[in-house]
């Protein structure tokens, strides 16, 4: 009769507790090993795409729509502030302009992208980059006519 | 010796597990309600329609005198009273059929009553006598 007796309750509880702790440890390592980093990368990808589109929309909106008054060469025609997220996935990033497109560069390989800019013909070039969370779009008049768009740091 | 089948005890573990499952389901329900739809936003589209209507009115030749149709209707109270029907008809013709509008000038308003619970696009045009505001929403 004694060999078919159960374990003492205290030992039983300790066993249960041990199993539960093991389970929690297993689950946590499984989640943090695969699921959580993938989710963070997915979220970072979405955030970076939206930040890039927000930046592109603001660069396009900064260009004034009329030829406007005659200004001297290199004079600033328009300025616009753009606010961007400070970090994506815990790290900084850079937004660079390349005449007809805007790209977001991030150290993680699946975060970032490039998008086209729709600008009037008067805009000759778009250059500069943003690394800060406060960006500035500066539109200058080119000496030979036309406009040049610069991305400058907002805190400068 | 008792038979433990009919007189079982509710295992505390099952209760604890039930509570744990409830927590997890509560977190998961945050995802289940869905996310906002994509495509061009309703607000952005309505704002664009309102801006288009304002631009067309501001650059149109007037019915009678003054610089543009918008300037004419905002010039004085008498001019507004005279032009309000023509203004309403013109805006009605410009905008697509599924839109309703309201135009406010310094001397009065024409159009439907603005809804309080739907997205409304707005455009404002400055004139010499004040500001003309156009609201547009889906019918």
């Amino acid at each position, binding site marked *: 009769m004694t060999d078919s007796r159960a374990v003492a309750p205290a030992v039983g509880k300790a066993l249960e507790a041990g199993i539960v702790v093991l389970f929690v440890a297993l689950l946590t390592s499984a989640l943090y090993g695969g699921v959580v980093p993938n989710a963070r990368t997915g979220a970072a990808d979405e955030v970076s795409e*939206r930040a890039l589109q927000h930046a592109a929309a603001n660069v396009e909106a900064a260009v004034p729509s009329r030829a406007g008054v005659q200004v001297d060469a290199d004079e600033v025609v328009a300025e616009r502030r753009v606010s961007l997220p400070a970090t994506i996935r815990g790290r900084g990033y850079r937004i660079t302009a390349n005449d007809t497109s805007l790209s977001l560069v991030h150290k993680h390989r699946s975060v970032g992208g490039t998008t086209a800019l729709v600008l009037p013909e008067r805009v000759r070039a778009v250059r500069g980059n943003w690394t800060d969370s406060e960006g500035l779009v500066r539109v200058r008049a080119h000496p030979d006519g036309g406009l040049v768009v610069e991305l400058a740091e907002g805190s400068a | 010796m008792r038979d433990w089948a009919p007189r079982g005890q509710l295992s505390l573990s099952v209760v604890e597990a039930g509570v744990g499952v409830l927590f997890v389901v509560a977190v998961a329900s945050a995802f289940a309600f869905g996310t906002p739809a994509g495509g061009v936003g309703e607000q*952005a589209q309505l704002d664009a329609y309102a801006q288009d209507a304002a631009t067309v009115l501001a*650059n149109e030749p007037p019915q009678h005198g003054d610089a543009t149709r918008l300037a004419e209707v905002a010039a004085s109270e008498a001019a507004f009273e005279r032009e309000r029907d023509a203004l309403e008809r013109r805006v009605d013709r410009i905008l697509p059929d599924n839109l309703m509008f309201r135009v406010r000038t310094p001397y009065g308003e024409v159009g439907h009553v603005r809804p309080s619970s739907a997205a409304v696009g707005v455009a404002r045009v400055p004139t010499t006598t004040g500001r003309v505001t156009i609201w547009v929403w889906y019918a």
Partner: protein
Amino acid sequence: MTRGQVNLPALAVALLLVAASVAAAVGLAGSAFAGANTDPEDSRLAASVAERLVAADGPLSVRANVLSRAAVENASARLDGRLPEGADLRVTLDGDPLVERGDPASGATMRRVVLVADAGRRTLVPGFENSDSVTLPRRTGNATLTFDTGAASVTTVRANDRVVLHDGAGLDGAYDISLSRYDTVTLSFAADGDLAPGSVTVAYRAETTTKAVLGVTVNA
């Protein structure tokens, strides 16, 4: 039957339940992520291209929110190279496609209200029976006056009391004048004699506008 650890199988079942619910939640999160991918690039490109086409200095525009009928009929040539690369897009006017590239069926659409202007050239030859002036029946931004006077020569031309042409020796030939698009204009001629009918020809462009809806659909 041995009175085994009743708790341990119950515990195992309970832990299995928790693990299953966590797996279900992770799956739900994955599908929510997929649904949250609203593709902001499509809507931004559609809005930007529509804004560009409607702007006063757009490739098809005469002025803000007014497109020229001639440009619209030649849209694919005019818009060549002005639209963003690498994206399927379609530009429609009142539903009829003007430019189509690829298949943007599942993309974002932006619509703008525009007027399409038809510029027709008209000629008016005033017969100077009662007065030395003529009122143009349509508003126009500019006109070309051709003088072919015989004995009398026209020295001054006024548009709504504003002098637009003046030559003491008499105007001869064709002259372009600019007028206000917002006013009905009355041209009055000052001559040093009686003007014969047919000595002045007024050629002007009368614009008729029709409303239309411009749609831009982009699928990047």
